């Protein structure tokens, strides 16, 4: 077993194990910090797949932005004196059966399909290519994503403002 396989299994175990803690933990803070480890594991998998810019972007945006936002959400949706940040489950049996069935079906499909082999892309530095593509072929989606972020910013601020009787 070469070192790349060992590193892959380590990152895969971190990712899937932390995701299980996210979904199954009783306390919300445990879920949030396990989500942090899940994002780190996914960034490691990106590096193994040769997507170095994407791994850095994942860490910056997901861990530094989205996770902090989720922690804000956890902290703001409980009373200040209520230190019992627990989260219950509803209909866990049915959900477990459905998720396990889905997992079995998708894994069977993924393992038994003969995927169309292509030239593949050996890991290389991707930042220059991504920059060129953003300014060239994917310029319209890039601008649309910028407008989407502006709309989300304004919309989120509008939704939570306190309506004062002016």
């Amino acid at each position, binding site marked *: 077993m070469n070192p*790349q396989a060992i590193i892959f299994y380590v990152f895969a175990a971190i990712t899937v194990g932390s995701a299980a803690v996210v979904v199954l933990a009783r306390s919300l803070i445990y879920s949030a910090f396990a989500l942090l480890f899940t994002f780190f594991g996914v960034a490691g998998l990106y590096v193994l797949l040769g997507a170095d810019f994407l791994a850095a972007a994942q860490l910056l945006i997901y861990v530094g932005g989205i996770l902090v936002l989720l922690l*804000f959400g*956890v902290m703001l949706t409980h009373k200040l004196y209520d230190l019992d940040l627990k989260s219950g489950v509803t209909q866990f049996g049915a959900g477990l059966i459905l998720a396990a069935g889905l*997992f079995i079906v998708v894994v069977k499909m993924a393992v038994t399909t003969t*995927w169309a082999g292509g030239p*593949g892309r050996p890991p290389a530095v991707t930042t220059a290519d991504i920059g060129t593509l953003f300014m060239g072929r994917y310029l319209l989606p890039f601008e649309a994503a910028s407008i989407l972020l502006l709309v989300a910013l304004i919309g989120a601020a509008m939704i939570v403002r306190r309506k004062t009787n002016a």
Partner: protein
Amino acid sequence: MIGLQHYLVVSAALFSLGILGVLTRRNAVNVLMGVELILNSANINLVAFSRYGAGNMQGQMFAIFVIVIAAAEVAVALAIVLTLYRLRRTPNLDEADILKG
């Protein structure tokens, strides 16, 4: 030798765990965490196919846009959760049943 199917199995596991989180958790922020797991699993699929299949950068570009959209979605979803909490004083989604017939 680590191939395409290894990454597909990992992403399938993340996807099923995300579905489990969305279906069974009561707290709204926990459901959002499940949605983030689903988005990450789709991203792993995209990047794995970009690496092992076509060989171009389309998978990674798509994954970057998915990350951008996930960030915008979490912002708006948390705004909705905070407003819901302000109205109903509870973060549990199954108690937001004003529209229930």
